[in-house]
C-alpha cells in the first residue's frame, strides 16, 4: 500500500511533465494536423535556458530575495525565450510548407528538430549538465507512511495551475473558442472572421512555453540534462497525446498523467527495465480497442 501510494505520487510527478509537453503537441496537431517533432527540443532548450539562468544569472537574486525568486525567474525567462524560439521556428520552418500539405511538414519538423538539437549542442556542449543542488529546501512532508518532497509538491502544484490556466483560456475565453473553431474547421472559422495567423501565433507561443517550463522542472527534479533528452520525453509526450485522443486538450493532460502513473507502477510491480515496453504495449492495446484514444471522439469517415 505504501509502495503503491508513493509510486502514484512519483507517477503523477512524471506524468505532469508529460502532460505539459503533450499539451503543445496536441494544440499544434489540433489546428495544423502536424506532428511537431521539434517540440521535444523546445522542451530541452527550455531546460538549458533554465540551467544557464540558475547557474550564472540568479545567484545574486537568490541571495537577495531567497530561493523562490531564482526558480521563478528561471521558469519565466525560459518560457519567454522558448515562446520566441517557437514563433521563429514556425515562421521559418513550418509556414512556408503549410500549403504543400502534411507530409512535407513532417520532414520540415524533423529538420527543425535536428537543427534545434544541434544548436543546443553547439551552445552548451555535448556533455551532460547538472542543475545546481539545493535550489529549494530539501523538505519532506509525512502523511502517515508515505512521504512527499517539497519539490514534488511544487512541481505538481505548478503543473496543475498551468494546465488549469490553459484549459480556462481555451474553453472559457472568446479567443479560446476561436482556437477551438479553427481546430474544428479552419476554412469556416476563417470565414467567420477568425485570424488564422493569430491562432497559430497563440499555439506556437503557449505550447513551447509550457514545454520549456516542463524542461526547467525536469532539470530540478532529475538534476541532470542532456541535449538529446528531448527525443525521449517528446516520444513519451506524443504517446500521451495519442493515448488521450489527439487534438483533445483534457485528453492530453489525462493521457500524460496516466502514462506517468503507468510507467511508475510498471517499474515497481513488473520490472524497471521493461517499464517502457509496458507503456507502449498499453498504448497499442488501447488503440486496438479504442482507435481514437481514451477520450477521443468518434469521427465519421468522410467519403
Amino acid at each position, binding site marked *: 500500500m505504501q509502495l503503491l501510494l508513493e509510486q502514484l505520487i512519483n507517477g503523477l510527478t512524471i506524468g505532469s511533465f508529460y502532460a505539459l509537453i503533450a499539451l503543445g503537441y496536441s494544440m499544434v*496537431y489540433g489546428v*495544423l*494536423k*502536424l*506532428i511537431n*517533432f521539434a517540440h521535444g527540443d523546445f522542451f530541452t532548450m527550455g531546460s538549458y535556458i533554465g540551467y544557464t539562468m540558475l547557474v550564472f544569472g540568479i545567484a545574486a537574486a537568490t541571495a537577495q530575495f531567497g530561493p523562490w525568486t531564482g526558480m521563478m525567474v528561471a521558469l519565466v525567462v525560459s518560457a519567454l525565450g522558448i515562446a520566441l524560439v517557437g514563433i521563429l521556428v514556425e515562421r*521559418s*520552418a513550418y509556414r*512556408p*510548407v*503549410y*500549403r*504543400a*500539405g*502534411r*507530409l*512535407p*511538414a*513532417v*520532414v*520540415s519538423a*524533423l*529538420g*527543425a*528538430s*535536428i*537543427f*534545434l*538539437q*544541434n*544548436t543546443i*549542442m*553547439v551552445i552548451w556542449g*555535448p556533455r551532460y549538465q547538472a542543475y545546481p543542488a539545493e535550489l529549494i529546501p530539501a523538505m519532506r512532508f509525512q502523511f502517515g507512511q508515505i512521504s512527499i518532497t517539497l519539490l514534488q509538491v511544487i512541481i505538481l502544484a505548478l503543473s496543475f495551475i498551468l494546465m488549469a490556466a490553459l484549459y480556462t483560456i481555451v474553453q472559457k475565453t472568446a479567443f479560446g473558442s476561436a482556437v477551438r473553431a479553427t481546430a474544428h*474547421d*479552419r*476554412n469556416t472559422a476563417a470565414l467567420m472572421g477568425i485570424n488564422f495567423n493569430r491562432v497559430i501565433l497563440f499555439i506556437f507561443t503557449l505550447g513551447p512555453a509550457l514545454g520549456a517550463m516542463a524542461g526547467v522542472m525536469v532539470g530540478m527534479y532529475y538534476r541532470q540534462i542532456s541535449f538529446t533528452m528531448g*527525443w525521449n520525453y517528446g*516520444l513519451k509526450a*506524443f*504517446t500521451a497525446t*495519442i493515448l488521450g485522443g*489527439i487534438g483533445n486538450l483534457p485528453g492530453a493532460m489525462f493521457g500524460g498523467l496516466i502514462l506517468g502513473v503507468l510507467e511508475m507502477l510498471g517499474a515497481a510491480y513488473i520490472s524497471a*527495465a*521493461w517499464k*517502457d*515496453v509496458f507503456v*507502449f*504495449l498499453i*498504448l*497499442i492495446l488501447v*488503440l*486496438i480497442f479504442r*482507435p*481514437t*484514444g481514451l477520450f477521443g471522439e468518434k*469521427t465519421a*469517415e*468522410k*467519403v
Partner: protein
Amino acid sequence: MGNGKSAGLSKLFTTTPWYVPVLFSALVVIYPFFATDYFIDIAFFFGIYALLGLSLNIVLGEVGLFDLGHAGFYAIGAYVTAILNTRYQIPILALLPVSALAAGLFAYLVCSPIIHLKGDYLCIVTIGMGEIVRLALINNPFDLTGGPNGVFGVDFPKLSPNLVIDSSIEYYFLVWAVVGLSILGLISLQHSRIGRAWNCIREDTVAAGATGINVRHYKLLAFVLGAGLAGVAGNIYASKLMCVSPESFTFWESCLMFCIVLIGGMGSIPGVLIGAAFISLFPEIFRPFAMYRMLVFGSVMIVMMMVRPGGFWPRKRGGVAFRSLLEDTGNGNA
C-alpha cells in the same frame, strides 16, 4: 520518351528518360575502381539506406501508410542473422532469405491487429512497435540478444569456400546487386495488379474497398514485403559490421528512412535513391564542418521541403497523384 505500349519494365521509361538508369548503373559499376576504401564504404552505406528507403517506400510511398517504426524490422533481420550465425554457424547468405522471412513474419504478426488504424494513429503504434523491439533487444530476453552490447563475431558471407566476401569492394557489389534486384522486382510490382491496388488504396481507401480491393489484405502485404526487404538490409548490415547492437535501430533511424522517402518523392524509385544519397552522403561530405554539419543538415531538409514539397524526383503518374496526402492542411480527417 516512349509510349510504354508493353507492360512491365518498359513502363519505367515513360516516366524516366532511358539514359538515367543506364548511366546510374554504369556509375555504380565503375565507381569502386576509382575510389578509396573509405569512399567505397560510404557508398556501401548509401546502398544499405537505399534498400531501407525502398523497403519503407512500399509501405509509405505505394500505400500511404505512416510507418515510423521501420527500424524494428531492420533490427529483426540483423539480429536473426547475427544470432543464428554466431550460435549455429549457419552461413550468412543462407540467412539472407531467413532474415527476410523472419522480419516479414514478425510484420504480419504485429501488424495484423493494428492494420485497421488510420493515419497518425497507425504512425504512433508503429513507433511503439519499433521502440518495443529496441527495448526488448536491450533487455536481453532469454540471453539471446546480448543486451546493450549486442552480438559480436558475425561471419563473412561466403559464396563458396574460396570465394569469401570480406573486402570493402566485395561488400559494395553485394549490397548494390541486392539493390539492383530489388529495384527490378519493385518496378514490376509497381505495374502489377498489386501495385495498382496499393496506389488505389493510397488515393482513396474507401473507394478502393468499394471496387472490391481487399484493403486489409493489401495493406498487410505491403507491410510484410517492406519488412522483408528491411530484413535483407539488416542481414547485409550485420555481416558488414560483424556485430549488431540496439543503438543502430533507434527511432532516429526510422525517421531517417521516413525522410529518405519524402525527400526523394513518395512512390518514386529514383527519388528514393536520391533521398538515400542525401541522407548517407551529406554527413560524410560535410564532415570537415564537424559539429556544425548537422545544423546544416537540418536546415537543408527544411529548405528542400520549401523548394520541392513533393520530393526531389516525384513519381509522375497520370493525373491523380497523392491527392489524399498532399491536400490542404485545413480540414479532413485523413
